[in-house]
């Protein structure tokens, strides 16, 4: 379990996170949602260790970030898989080299063993025949799948995704969402997704944290989001007419 305890983060005197406390559980797809500028990327970067909170702590299965040595930090980071918004694949490396990179860096496996593992994870994300291609030769959806393959190649305990389906068509976005959820269940890992795609929230948000102006304004699941009376989340999630109608229909059906 990841425990976030009362974390504060500021930039140039501007408080971005104001006392966030929450937990992210194993085997669940946890989602952080909120408007642009609400602090969700900063929270994700704090979880990843790219930003250090001024106050509070983050504990990964009992290991507090504030008490870890540099070596332990490095070890912890090897247990983390990350899918960046744009994929963050290395342009100069082939798809195979991209996925193999963490294996080369942190294991002493033979080339054949590494290649087998690469093929296995590529197969897992339903990609074949792309080993020798470069990232620029793939579509956005395929790049995201490669990024997921690279994130899971080291068998991580924690998977973080920053807007994994931004810029994708609805069909591909659903494929990516389902893939992330399947992997979360299959490997029994803690997945934290940063998103403002309401389809994803409704589809796979088993636990949702809604941030507003750096404060945790709501917490619940995708089923609870229909019933909530919290004005902040209603205004955010049901800002489009389509979602308003979906909610009305859902509530009418319940009555």
């Amino acid at each position: 379990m990841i425990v976030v305890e009362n974390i504060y983060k500021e930039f140039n005197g501007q408080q971005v996170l104001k006392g966030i406390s929450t937990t992210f559980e194993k085997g669940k797809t946890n989602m952080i949602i909120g408007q642009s500028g609400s602090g969700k990327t900063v929270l994700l970067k704090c979880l990843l260790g790219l930003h250090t909170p001024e106050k509070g702590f983050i504990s990964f299965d009992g290991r507090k970030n504030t008490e870890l040595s540099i070596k332990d930090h490095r070890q912890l980071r090897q247990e983390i898989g990350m899918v960046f918004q744009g994929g963050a694949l290395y342009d100069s490396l082939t798809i195979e080299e991209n996925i193999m990179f963490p294996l080369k860096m942190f294991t002493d496996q033979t080339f054949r063993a590494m290649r087998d593992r690469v093929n296995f994870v590529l197969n897992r994300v339903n990609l074949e025949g792309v080993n020798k291609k470069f990232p620029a030769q793939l579509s956005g959806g395929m790049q995201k799948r490669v990024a997921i393959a690279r994130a899971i190649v080291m068998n991580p305990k924690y998977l973080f995704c920053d807007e994994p389906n931004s810029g994708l068509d609805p069909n591909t976005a659903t494929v990516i969402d389902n893939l992330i959820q399947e992997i979360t269940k299959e490997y029994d890992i803690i997945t934290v997704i940063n998103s403002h795609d309401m389809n994803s929230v409704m589809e796979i948000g088993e636990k949702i944290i809604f941030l507003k102006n750096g404060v945790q304004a709501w917490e619940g699941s995708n089923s609870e989001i229909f019933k909530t009376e919290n004005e902040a989340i209603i205004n955010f999630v049901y800002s489009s007419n389509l979602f308003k109608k979906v909610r009305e229909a859902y509530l009418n059906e319940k009555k």
Partner: protein
Amino acid sequence: MNYFEHVGKYFIMLKQVFKKPQKWSVFKEMLFREIEDLGLKSLGIVMFISFFVGGVVAIQTALSVDNPFIPKYLIGFATKRSVILEFAPTFMSVILAGKVGSYITSSIGTMRVTEQIDALEVMGINSLNYLVLPKIIAVLFFYPLLILLAMFLGIYGGYVAGIMTDLFFSEDYIYGVQLDFNPYFIKYALIKTLVFAFAIATIPSYHGYYVKGGSLEVGRASTQAVVWTSIVIILMNYFLTQMLLG
């Protein structure tokens, strides 16, 4: 941010760069890649420029030496001196600062704005050590060879120019090149080259690594990197000349 802050941040960056590589096999792979990108791919431009500039120096010296009391072998002597002392180490380094410096800044800067550096950090990799150290080692190893080649081709360009233009005899030129040869000048040129090579690898890396924004900022950072690397090379050239020849 003022200049002092940049200088401080640059040295803090160097502290991170000069750490033991996390995996030697990966470091070696990166090193060979950088030797190819930063060194071998600069061979063509170095050969082309040094050959023709050597020729131009010889022709201009020949045209300036029209007094019959000044011996013609001075053309070879002057060409050799200018090429070895200044043209090859300093001006070739300024040219490389433009070619290689902009490449380094734009490649690292693009990695920064597309979150590839964040991806390295998340994996627990010291991104500065991984990205910059192989570049430093590659240029420190390869640039002295490039500069020696530039020296040879510059002097040879002068010789070919003499044959092509009939402005001086090749025997006079060769005699001038051999006259009063001081090996210390080569040493001096190579010391300068090493210092400039270090600047060419690290200053553009600094500008690329700390870039913020998008592709426009990466372009701006590349320009700034070339300007600052050139300034540092010219200033260091002055101080090194004072120290080593003064």
